[in-house]
């Protein structure tokens, strides 16, 4: 099965989606095969029959592909301002600065997967704020200049945890501003903001599907069409549900006396 051309083509598709440069994609696909065959196919021997064998092999290969990327390009912690922008920006930063993937090709390959203009904007801002992004050896030397520590070798878990903490704090800051619109510098006390956040959670009563949809849209920055493909529904359905969630949030804030009247661009909570 592993050497079946169709299976190998699937590995190629995964690699080509992740790495836009053909040479890099080939290297990644080879690394996936190496990982699968490692230690006498140990990972595949753990197969427990809970899916089709090929599907399991692809799942193992997907993990191996990210292991390859971390091994090959290092694990510096993304700058704080990038983490606040979300996973889409962190992902593009890795691809652009660490993996040195070509900006034009990235825009071409990923433009339609993300919301309109996100890839172009992210590349422009990242290049502007980190001028040496993508230079040879950036991951080894230049990140030191940015004060970025290396993350532990934990398959990315610590990035996830840091991102969750950052976003929680960010949400509390937003709620603090809504609680005290007159003076954003005067805090109403962290416990108040935590209470408000908990009340919002209770009022919205998000389902697991809603949460995943929010992650794919607001965190990963994916287009409605791409999300629809992943969830097996139509782009119109995705847009309707997102609009519904937007409306629910607005209503909940209004009922709680926290209507947000600031216009786009007036809020800047970046540290």
């Amino acid at each position, binding site marked *: 099965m592993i050497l079946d*051309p169709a299976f190998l083509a699937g590995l190629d598709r995964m690699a080509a*989606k992740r790495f836009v440069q053909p040479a890099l994609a080939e290297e990644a696909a080879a690394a996936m095969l190496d990982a699968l065959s490692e230690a006498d196919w140990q990972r595949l021997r753990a197969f*427990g029959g809970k899916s089709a064998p090929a*599907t399991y092999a692809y*799942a193992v290969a997907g993990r191996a592909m990210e292991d390859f990327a971390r091994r090959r390009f290092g694990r510096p912690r993304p700058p704080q301002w990038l983490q606040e922008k979300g996973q889409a920006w962190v992902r593009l930063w890795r691809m652009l600065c660490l993996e040195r993937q070509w900006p034009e090709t990235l825009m071409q390959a990923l433009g339609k997967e993300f919301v309109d203009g996100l890839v172009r904007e992210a590349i422009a801002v990242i290049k502007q704020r980190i001028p040496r992004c993508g230079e040879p050896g950036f991951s080894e030397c230049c990140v030191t200049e940015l004060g970025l520590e290396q993350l532990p070798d934990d398959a990315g878990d610590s990035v996830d945890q840091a991102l969750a903490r950052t976003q929680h704090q960010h949400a509390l800051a937003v709620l603090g501003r809504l609680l005290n619109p007159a003076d954003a510098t005067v805090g109403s006390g962290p416990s108040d903001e935590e209470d408000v956040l908990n009340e919002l959670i209770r009022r919205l009563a998000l389902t697991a599907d809603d949460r995943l949809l929010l992650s794919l849209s607001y965190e990963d920055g994916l287009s409605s069409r791409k999300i629809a493909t992943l969830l097996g529904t139509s782009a119109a359905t995705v847009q309707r549900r997102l609009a519904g969630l937007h409306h629910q949030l607005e209503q909940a804030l209004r009922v709680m006396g926290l209507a947000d009247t600031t216009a786009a661009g007036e809020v800047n909570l970046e540290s």
Partner: protein
Amino acid sequence: MNPETEKSLFRALRYQDQPSLLSRPEFEGFATTDEILAAHADGRLTSAQQEWLTVALANSNILRQQWVALLESRETVAARQGVWRRFAMAGAAASVLLAGVLVFVNDPPQEFSPPASPMAESHPAPQARAQVDAPMRKQSSADQSFAFEDRAEPPQRPAAALAMPVPDWNGFMAVYAGDQAHLSDSPEGRFQALALSLRHLQQEDCSVAAAQTFLQRLTLSRQDYPAPLSPLEPGLTADACALGEQLIQMARQAVGQ
């Protein structure tokens, strides 16, 4: 509402505290998250397992990234790269792989089938060749088919031109009636998976999780059989029950029941 406010709040609200998937009783018997993701992709999770996985996917960027990569490996539009070129050049690597495959064939893990590639056919020793051939003859065409669009030979059944063959409807009805599904990454396999999810949808009284799985599979089968399934437009989960009824009516008509 200010878009930045909305974004910041939704990013924080998407999280839901939960222990790791593998520590949950629902996933007893699963050894790794790879196994869980693979079972999900093949539609073999229960509603409860599906629910917990969805929460985990919303929480973890890394897991979501792996999930997306897995789904992309199964997409039908291939961006063919140079695996064969790489293999042709990397003789040493291929030898190592081949040795691994031979070991694999001698002691195959559960359900893993031996390689069916032209490359494997050109290299194994006669003894191994015989071992490879025997199970291959037993495999159904659905078992062997895996993203048929990517095979080196011209595809026998181009997706755009597919009409629904009667045997596929028969297979669908058999699975719907309770037979075991032969799941594979082929139009027939995906269609049987759709039958399985329809059965599940009705057993679960059209629960949201079952409806979502059904709609996902319907979308995939509509790509395989665009003409016959075109009247069934996947939409809201609330419509899944009615769509399921419509689908089973079509199936009954096709097999003359």
